[in-house]
Every structure is written in structure tokens, then in C-alpha cells.
């Protein structure tokens, strides 16, 4: 790898990644390194296992009232989840019972008392439900992020992925997915960004894709929003901040996408798209 960082520094980043202290912008870079470098992989496996255990030091006794309350709430939810649902016949029998005047009267009295006694409890419950709903939203977002990252890492490391060597890195396609894994991209002038372009099969003009800036660590991973199976080529050029509708500079590279598994050594940089 043509990385400007020395090996020790990169491995230091792996430990920081395993602990979870890297900014989001660097995570995908280190993940790529881990997938490509067996020593980094070993370092990651060991560091992650150890870092996960740091949390155990926070274990502490929970006061018995709180522990019991939590357990009661939790098991009530769980048991209601596994309890068999009422059958229509059972519901009909139940309706008949509730049809008696005595039961109806009891229910009315019970409801009145409950409304008075539980008014504040319902308010607390509503608040708690809102907090649980908010937490659930975060959990769902986390799961989506992890699933997306896992899919990307699987694609990059898959043996059936197609890899094309280009200036400053590799274009990787697998199924419908296409990624740019670029190292040591030249720094950009102020107000400039890199922009990816895609050329659909049979098309005469390229379509604008994502804009990105190189990572300070020299490794940039860019998933493109296009179906790799319908693409004839991908390219990257330097464009004004915000991107352009058509390339305005000579491409950094242009890479046709074909059937070859690995076109090592082929460099498509500075070639015209037409």
C-alpha cells in the first residue's frame, strides 16, 4: 500500500478503531486496512476483544427495589409476548361473562377508582413510552448503519468481486455495487472536490455521481449510487465544491468496467470518456 503513514501509526489507528474512538470519517479507512492486512486484522481482533471487556469494570450492584422493578416490567413484557392469543371462542365466552350486570357494575367502580389513582402513573408511563420509542429509533438507525457497513466490507473482501487498478487505487464491483478505494489522492485546492462519474452502457454522456474529499490518512472509500451491472465505465475528476453537472476538468482516471476479474497494472487515468 502506498500510504503516507508508517506502519506503526496505522496499527495504532487499528487499536483506536477497535476501542471506538475514531471519527466516522476514518472508520471506513481503517476497516479497509483491516481487511487487506493480516497483521492489522489480528491486531483488530485482539484489541476489540479486550476493548469490549473495558465495560465490565462499570458493573455495579443495583439497589434491590430498582432491580426488582426493572425485572418485573421486563418479564411482564416478555411473558405477554409469549402468551397465547385469545381465540374467538374464548373471546365470546369472555363477553358473555362481562355481560352480567354484576360484572358491569364492578367494572365501572373499578374504572373510576383506577382513573383517579392512576392518573399520574399514566402520565409517567406515557413519558417512559416516548423515551423508549426514541431509543428504539436510535437502535434501528444503528442497525441500519451496521448492516450497510457490513455489506460494504463483505463486498470489498469478497473473492468474486471484480477489481480494477486505477490511478491512486482500485475500483471494486460486486453484483450491483461499485466502490472506489483510493489511496494517496493528491490534495485539493481550496473550493475543489473530487467527483465521481458513471457512464451507463449505451450512453454517450456521463452522469454525475457523489463528490468527496480525500482522507487525511490517504485512504478514501467511496460507494457509488449506481447499478454496477448497467455501467460501462466510472471516472473521477476534480470539480468545484458542490460538484458539476458535467466534468469540467481532465479526469483523474477513467475506468471501463468489463468482465475481467483483475486488471492489475492497467491504468485508465487521463483518458477521454468519449
Amino acid at each position, binding site marked *: 500500500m502506498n500510504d503516507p503513514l508508517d506502519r506503526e*501509526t496505522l*496499527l*495504532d*489507528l487499528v*487499536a*483506536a*478503531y*477497535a*476501542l*471506538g*474512538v*475514531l*471519527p*466516522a470519517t476514518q*472508520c471506513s479507512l481503517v*476497516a479497509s486496512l483491516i*481487511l487487506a492486512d493480516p497483521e492489522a486484522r489480528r491486531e*483488530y*481482533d*485482539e*484489541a*476489540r*476483544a*479486550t*476493548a*469490549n*471487556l*473495558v*465495560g*465490565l*469494570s*462499570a*458493573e*455495579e450492584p*443495583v439497589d434491590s427495589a*430498582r*432491580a426488582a*422493578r*426493572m*425485572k418485573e*416490567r*421486563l*418479564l411482564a*413484557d*416478555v*411473558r405477554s*409476548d409469549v402468551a397465547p392469543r385469545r381465540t374467538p371462542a374464548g373471546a365470546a365466552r369472555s363477553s358473555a361473562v362481562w355481560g352480567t350486570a354484576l360484572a358491569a357494575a364492578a367494572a365501572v367502580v373499578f374504572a373510576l377508582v383506577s382513573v383517579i389513582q392512576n392518573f399520574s402513573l399514566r402520565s409517567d408511563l406515557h413519558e*417512559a413510552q416516548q423515551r*423508549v420509542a*426514541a*431509543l*428504539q429509533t*436510535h*437502535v434501528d438507525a*444503528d442497525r441500519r448503519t*451496521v448492516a450497510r*457497513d*457490513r455489506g*460494504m*466490507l463483505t463486498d470489498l473482501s469478497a473473492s468474486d468481486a471484480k477489481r480494477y487498478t486505477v490511478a491512486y487505487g482500485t475500483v471494486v464491483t460486486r453484483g450491483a455495487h461499485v466502490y472506489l478505494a483510493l489511496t494517496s489522492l493528491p490534495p485539493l485546492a481550496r473550493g475543489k472536490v473530487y467527483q465521481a462519474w458513471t457512464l451507463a452502457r449505451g450512453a454517450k454522456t456521463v452522469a454525475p455521481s457523489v463528490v468527496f474529499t480525500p482522507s487525511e490518512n490517504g485512504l478514501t472509500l467511496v460507494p457509488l449510487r449506481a447499478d454496477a451491472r448497467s455501467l460501462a465505465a466510472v471516472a473521477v475528476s476534480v470539480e468545484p465544491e458542490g460538484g458539476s453537472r458535467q466534468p469540467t476538468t481532465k479526469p483523474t482516471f477513467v475506468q471501463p468496467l468489463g468482465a475481467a476479474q483483475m486488471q492489475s497494472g492497467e491504468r485508465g487515468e487521463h483518458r477521454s470518456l468519449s
Partner: protein
Amino acid sequence: MEDGARLMERVRARDVDAFEQLYDGYHRLVFGIALRITSDAALAEDLTQSIFLKLWSSPETFREGNFAGWLSRVTRNQALDVVRSRANRPGAEMPAEIPAEASTDATVFARIDAQRVRGALSALSEEQRTPIELGFFAGITHEEIALRTGIPLGTIKTRIRTGLRRMRESLNETVSR
């Protein structure tokens, strides 16, 4: 109590008794981490509830390895997410779950408990322990750790790396005794 990973296998089969054992065995860990990160007992209680309910509803999210370590990481990430959403700021990102090649943590660290981890952490020098604890519990980036401690970023990275290595060695020693 059965090992957490085995209990999770039973939870997958909708075994309520196994789930109850899981709660009895691990609620102190989940609540402790949530409380340490949020400094809010009511919120820590809600998080504990939410995390255990998730274990019940989606037991497949745990695949293999050291259950306590995995649960610890899940709790940490969810608690930090709540803290961040309240503060409306981004932070360090959880590592994408690159699948482990071998469940070394499961075999080597299966019997690790809180006391052993505290021992291993206290065996580190303060300069190694501080960035590791700040990173795990405060969820700040290595750059923020450097700013907060006034130590150069490169030194922080090295201390995290060497600290985790020493901690692992120390835990290995306690396991092999």
C-alpha cells in the same frame, strides 16, 4: 448460572426462564455501564429495559464470542447514542462489525468477570488507563482525548494500543492461573 452465550441460545428458542437468568446475571453490567455513561439513573433504567427487550426480540443479533463483552459494547454504544442525541453532537463511530475470524475472545475470555477487568485496568499506568476509559465511557474521539488531556494525538494512539495490549496480557495471566 449458565454461560451467557448458552443462555442466548435458549432465548432464541423463546425460553423465558433462560431470559430471566440472563437478566439476573447481566443487569448489573448493563445498568452500570448505562449509568456511568449517562449519569442519570432513570435513563440508565430505561436503557437497561430497552437493551434486554432487544435481546428478547432480536436474539440473533448476538452470534458468537464473549457475551459479556458483546453486551458491554452494545450497551456502551446505545448509551452514547442517547447522550449524543441529547447533546446533538456527533462522536466517535462504533467499528463496523467486521466478523471475527476466530472467536479468540470467547475461548480465552469466557471466564473474565468485572473484578478481573478492574484488576487489569488498575495494573495499567494512569497514562494508559485514562485514554482507554475516556474512549470507552465518554465516547469521544482520540483527537478529543488529546485535547482534553493535553497530550499529543500520536501519543494518545500509542497509549491506547499499548494499554489494550497490556490489559490483554494481564487478563490472559489471570485466566491461565
